[in-house]
């Protein structure tokens, strides 16, 4: 009797079942390892190749003309352009996005219009950014604005704003929905009108989460290249007006990546390091904002 159960409990599983378990475990870990390897390789290379070129000059200088040695070289203008266009895009998309989200969570709720807005926003967030660039090209670049027709910071910012809008709308709605219903009722019971309730209670208490969403949207568009390629284009000089071709870090990385000049390739790597730093810091900041409260 004892020996019978002894065998029953301690007998190993059949070879095929063990093989399946250990085999699948190995495969899954191995494949996950590949993914991690790719990530670490990207990060490692950017540091290895980008760090040597990271001097104070890169923030304050223009790209040196090719072939000239000993001249300070950098991409201050590209940083300027990225910050400028992302800032304009934020100014355009955030107010509109937050108001749309307020409509969704406070007024439209599950009505037909609100559901259509949600649907359209999730579709819009999936439209390839190059298509948004094409749209901005047709709407802004080909149009004459303030007596100017052509590539401009405005066109680039417009494209980025279109990309940001659905991200802001969807994340803000989530943030607003988290505000407890009782707070709205309590405010209304004290005689506040809907504008007061919405802004003083709902938006105010959701502000950290809204900020998180906005920061994530900013992080996302800071690295966008495709929608800027033929809207803002590029330029080798400092920015003087919104209505001129405008440089950006991402387009600069693209342009210099294929350059035959080592100095330009070096700038591309260093710019990658700076851009990645900006994106990661914004990402981290977004986590920090919600964790604090």
């Amino acid at each position: 009797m004892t020996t019978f159960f002894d065998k029953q409990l301690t007998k190993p599983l059949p070879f095929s079942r063990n093989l399946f378990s250990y085999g699948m475990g190995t495969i899954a870990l191995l494949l996950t390892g590949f993914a991690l390897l790719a990530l670490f390789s990207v990060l490692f290379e950017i540091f290895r190749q980008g760090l040597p070129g990271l001097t104070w000059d890169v923030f304050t200088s223009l790209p040196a003309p090719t072939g000239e040695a000993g001249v300070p070289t950098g991409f201050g203008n590209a940083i300027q352009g990225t910050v400028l266009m992302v800032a304009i895009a934020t100014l355009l998309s955030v107010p509109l996005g937050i108001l749309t989200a307020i409509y969704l969570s406070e007024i439209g709720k599950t009505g037909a219009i609100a559901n259509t807005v949600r649907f359209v926003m999730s579709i819009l967030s999936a439209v390839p950014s190059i298509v948004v660039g094409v749209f901005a090209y047709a709407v802004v670049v080909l149009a004459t604005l303030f007596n100017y027709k052509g590539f401009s910071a405005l066109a680039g910012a417009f494209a980025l704003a279109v990309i940001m809008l659905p991200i802001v709308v969807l994340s803000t709605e989530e943030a607003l929905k988290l505000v407890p219903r009782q707070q709205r009722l309590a405010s209304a019971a004290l005689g506040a009108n809907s504008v007061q309730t919405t802004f003083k209670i709902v938006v105010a208490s959701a502000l950290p989460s809204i900020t998180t969403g906005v920061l994530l949207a900013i992080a996302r568009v800071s690295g966008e290249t495709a929608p800027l390629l033929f809207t803002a284009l590029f330029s080798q000089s400092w920015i003087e007006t919104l209505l001129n071709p405008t440089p950006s870090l991402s387009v600069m990385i693209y342009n210099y990546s294929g350059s035959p000049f080592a100095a330009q390739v070096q700038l591309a790597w260093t710019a990658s390091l700076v851009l990645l730093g900006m994106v990661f810091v914004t990402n981290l900041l977004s986590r920090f904002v919600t964790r604090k409260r």
Partner: protein
Amino acid sequence: MIHQMSSNAHSESIVGGDRAWLDRSFAWVLRLIALAAIALLFWMGNVILQSALPAIAKFGATFLTSQDWDVNQLQFGALPYLYGTAVTSAIALLFAVPIGISVAIVTSEPFLPTWVRSPLGFLIELIASIPSVIVGLWGIFVLIPFLKPIQLWLHDQFGWIPLFSTETFGPSMLVAGIILAIMILPTIAALSRDIMTSVPSDLRTASMALGATRWEMIFTILLPASASGIVGAVILGLGRALGETMAVTMVIGNSDLISVSLLDSGNTIPALLANQFPEALDELHVGALMYLALILFALTLIVNILAMIIVKIFGFKY
């Protein structure tokens, strides 16, 4: 002042009054903004359609089947780009689906201690935040040199298979597909993991209480229960792959010829748009590019709506 206010409150009617008016106009302003947000998508579609009209009028449906893309002769055919887009996306799925599902399983099932598992999920999702132009730069200087000997070896050993029938220069559809796989991996992994973690843990326990090993439980319970969600995640990944531009442009070699060999360079719709838009001057050339953009726009719409429908209809059983 206080007296005034309270008397005001007393005299105020509880119906109508300026408050109701304010509330209603606030609602209307918001409604208009919301409608504008809806209009944005249609505006986008319409603008692209209008700009594409010259090319649509000239080439019609033959645009989709012609292989000519000659800017000087103003002859435009989209087939090489449709082909390149399809092939690179297929390669991307081939790599990203098994890896993405593996990552989802490894980060949701307790194979590894929690202190390894949670940073692991975070790291994989970090890939999604790396700008694609940076991945492309890495592709040019790291991935292509790394894959070149492998591609040459594939040609040496399996050259008799049409897929590997040419010698590579380095940049190729295979490299582009692999880089796309890296870029869509976080989408597939993160969405699949969310779906798997929402499968009730009761079911896992019940399965293993019947003597199943963890992997048997994964294949008989976990994956079937989350199948529709995983399919949705994969289709969303496909949507991203179709539209991904920069990383692909930088490693695909930008050739306008159709080649069966994956080791040959090729081109995709987004890559062509990125390359030619800045220099497009002729109305017909711009129109042809817009036509391509319209096709891409429609493709991603279809793919994303499909993903939503699959998740909704065949949705989660629990």
